[in-house]
Structure formats: C-alpha cells, structure tokens
C-alpha cells in the first residue's frame, strides 16, 4: 500500500568496520552506500534509550563517521563493534561548494575537523581538482586520517602545537605561507572556531573565497527548534558550511556559541 511520504526516515544498518584512529578517535564504516551525502553534510546518530548527536560525514561510500570519545554519547558510540546496528537520519545541512572550473583548492583541518576535509579533498580529486591540505593537531598523536589524506592530496602540510610532527605552531604558520606561494580557487576550513576565524580572515585579506564548517549545539537537525542559532542563521539548515562572508556577517562567529539552554558562551 502506498503510504504518506516521510522525509526524515531513520536508517538502521550494521557496522561494517571500526578503525581506531588514535587514542580517542574511532572511525565507523556503516553498511550503507549513502551516495547522496556530500562533503560538509552531517547525520544525526541515534542510540536508542541514550540520545542523539550530529556527526560529520567522513565518507559516503561506505558511509563513514569518525567519533572522538569526549562525552557520554560519543563514548557509547565508541563502544560499538563491527556487526552492531547503528541508527541515524540524514544527510542534513548545506555542503561545501567548489567554484566552477576550480583547479586548486586548499583544505585546512584542525584536530578531528580533518574528517569532512578529507571527504571534500577526495571528492575534489575525483573531479580532477588538485587538493592541498594543512593539518594541525596538539601533538603527533592527535593527527588522524593521515594515510587517506596523503593518498588524495597533491601535498599535505602538518603542524603541531608542540612540534612533535611537522612545523611547530598552529595551522596558520603553513596557511599564511601557502596563500602567498600558491593560487587557490577556494580555501575550506573545519576545526576549532578560532582557527577557522583566522583562516577566513587571512583569505579575506587576499580576496580568496573561503568556506568554513561551523559547529553549534543542535537538537532537531531540521531547522525548526532554533537551538543551533548563530545570530539569525541556523547551523543545521543554513550551515554547517558558511561562506566567510556569511560567517563574518554573524557577530557571534569566532566569539560565542550557545549552550543547551540557549545562553551565549565564549569560545
């Protein structure tokens, strides 16, 4: 019988593989080729009886997420093994967009912000665009996705706060250099918001298009509840990807986010 159409279906599929990325991040490959998912989009992972969290998509075929064990729900997700069921809805949000006729792009990932950056770099490579990457972490053991990233990028530049790998310092030491030396059609950033703010600012100074992927506390994921507001925009539907212009138009960008109650907190 034909039924009323439901737009936000909950998928339940088995976990194909769990990969330990480092001391706290695990990647989960799901038995689902979500071909419609695009770089920058996210899914809402549902753990029955526990809760729901948005997770950035690290790959679409197979659908992959990477989870840092930092809270009760992410901790529970990290306990899952190959063969276990995983439930989720999506994909949601506005994806990254690559300018027409782009030849070279730069992706900048801080910490596990590299997850959607890898997916974007991989998609760019498949469209014959050359991706360059700058990856930053606190120390060498915080760096993830190194192998696949090197496989799809023309060049990868690494920075660590303590100098245990790559150049010592934050991503800007490499980003500033690269923006001088090479011509990029667009620069993309995902990571701590202050980092994205500095990347976007550096691009603005040199008139290079830039897109950032913002994170806000999220509840419904579908643009109704208003929890993920950044000024008057909603991260779940107007974002998570914003152009640098859109981001700078929001006074809260790089400065404040809202907690679960809606109170503004400093980043």
């Amino acid at each position: 019988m034909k039924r009323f159409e439901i737009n936000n279906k909950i998928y339940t599929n088995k976990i194909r593989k769990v990969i330990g990325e480092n001391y706290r991040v695990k990647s989960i490959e799901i038995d689902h080729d979500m071909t419609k998912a695009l770089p920058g989009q996210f899914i809402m992972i549902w753990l029955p009886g526990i809760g729901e969290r948005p997770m950035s998509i690290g790959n679409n075929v197979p659908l992959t997420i990477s989870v840092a064990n930092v809270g009760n729900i992410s901790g529970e997700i990290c306990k899952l093994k190959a063969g276990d069921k995983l439930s989720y809805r999506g994909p949601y949000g506005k994806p990254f967009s690559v300018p027409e006729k782009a030849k070279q792009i730069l992706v900048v990932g801080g910490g596990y912000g590299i997850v959607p950056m890898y997916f974007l770099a991989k998609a760019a490579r498949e469209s014959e665009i050359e991706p360059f990457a700058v990856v930053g972490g606190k120390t060498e053991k915080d760096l993830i996705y190194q192998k696949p990233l090197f496989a799809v990028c023309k060049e990868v530049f690494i920075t660590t706060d303590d100098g245990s790998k790559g150049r010592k310092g934050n991503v800007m030491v490499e980003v500033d250099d690269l923006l001088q030396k090479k011509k990029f059609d667009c620069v993309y950033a995902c990571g701590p918001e202050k980092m994205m703010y500095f990347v976007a600012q550096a691009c603005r100074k040199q008139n290079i298009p830039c897109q950032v992927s913002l994170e806000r506390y999220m509840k419904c994921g579908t643009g109704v509840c208003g929890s993920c507001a950044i000024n008057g925009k909603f991260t779940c539907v107007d974002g998570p990807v914003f152009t640098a212009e859109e981001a700078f138009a929001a006074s809260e960008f790089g400065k404040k986010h809202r907690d679960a109650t809606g109170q503004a907190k400093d980043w």
Partner: protein
Amino acid sequence: MLETKFFNKKIKNPIFLASGVLGMTKGSLETACDNGCGGVIAKSLTMEPRKGHEGPNIVEVECGILNAMGYPNPGIDYGLKEFGGWDREEALVISIVGKDAKEFGMLAEKVETVKKELGASAIEAAISCPHTPGYGTMAGQGTPESVMEIVGAIRDKCKLPLIVKLSPSIPGEGKAAEAAQKAGADVINMGNSLGPGMKIDINRKKPVLGFGVGGLTGPAVKPIIVRCVYDIYKTVKIPIIATGGITTGEDAVEMIMAGASWISVGSAVYYRSPKVFGEIAKEMKSWMELNGYKKLAELKGAAHEKI
C-alpha cells in the same frame, strides 16, 4: 489587505511565529520577521535555565511531527535580556511557563519589572504542554479551576495584555477559555501540540523520542484545532489566536472563519522553511482577491453566520 491590530501595534498581517519554534535567540526571532510574519512569540521562559529533553527531540510521522523538546530555554532573567529592547514593527510576545500559579506570578512580575525596556506587546502563559513533567497538562494545568488560579496570579503582577495558551487535548476547552476570560485574560491561544503520542522504531523496537512521548503537531491536528477555535469563539468574547497545523494561506483563512483573529505557525517551518510566513501571507491575499474579500474582518467568524 491583511493589516490588523495587535494591542499597541498595527501589524502587516495576522501571522505569528508560534512559541517554541526557531525563537531561541533574538536573532532567530528577527529571521522570522525578515521572512514576513506580523509578530513573534518567543521561546517559553522558565524560572531557571533548562536544557530540555535528551534527543531525538523530533520525529516525523504521517501528516505531522511528534516533538518533545522539554522547554529548553535560558531562564527568565537571561531570556528577558536576550529578547529585550525590541524595536521592530512586528509585535513581540513573551511566553512564560511555570510549575504552578505562584511561579507564574513570579515570572509575570519579572516581565512587569522590565516592561518598558522589553518592548513586548503582550505576555503569553502556556499551560498546555503535553510532554514536560511538572508543567502544562502533565501538571494538571488547563482545567477551568487551575486556569482561574494561574491567570489570576499573572493578572495580579503584570499589566501587559495576557494571552492564555490552552491545550486542545483537555475536555471542555470552552470552559477553560471561559475561566481564562473571567480571570482577566485578553486573548485565548488555541492551542498546543496534541497528545502526547508515540512513535516506535520497529527496527530498534524502541520509542524514537528521547522522552518516549511527544506532542503531535502539523496538518494532522488542524481539524481538531479548527473545531476548538469554533467552539471557543461561541463561548468567549475575547479574541482568539489559532495555533495548530496551519501550513498554507487557505488553512489560515479557515481558522479565521472559525473565529480566530490571528494565527500562529510552527510546524509549517519544518515543511516550508522560515519563508513560510511571507508565503502564507501571499496565499491568503490571493485567495481573498480571487474571492472578492477586501479585509480580514469580513472573514472573521464567517463560518458562524446564519444563512
């Protein structure tokens, strides 16, 4: 054509953003205004900040949405600062929810204290949430007796026009509306989400919503709200805001014919994005033009006219 009065303001149309949708921050209320509504009803404020229920908070069902947000809000003190200083042409309504009459009175007093700086046109008391322990229908609010008590307590402390948001899920809404009118309410808002209802995911064998149950909204509830508005229009003299399932201009016209003076829109944002406010206004206008109506007043309560 759609211009109407709302207490101290002349607003461009009778369409309001319903409380609980989008309006967590002042910026998001402004987004609703930029998209063409005549007024906004802010997220309901409680005495203390609340994180709300664990997710999922929303699940789509056939012809509607179940939600259990659990009143996430920054608390009355923070909220009044957040929403305050309202100087737009659209009307702002501050919504409050308390555990009992005494708490409603305390919340109303806080609103009254900052009334001048706030810039709000009215205050709304929601006594009808079906899925938050300690509040609304889960706390037995909404019976004629409790309506009398709560409205009375607010009226004592706050002089702003008072809207009482009633549940369509209680028996005898007409009696509750009469009680609200008698205790000094200026407007009835009919209504709130229905139920509660439940959605079970058959693959996981578990209720989807984090809270287990949630209120039903969307097109599925509209016929019930139309009937409630129609009944309340017959029982009270004070004007009515209709809330529930309004997704198109024709839905809005139907509610006004049932007796509503204004309408508020929530779930339609899910189906049609925040653009829905301007779109409903446009659709109302074209329907009225097509059918030879010039003013909203010609439509109000039209379904009650004897032939």
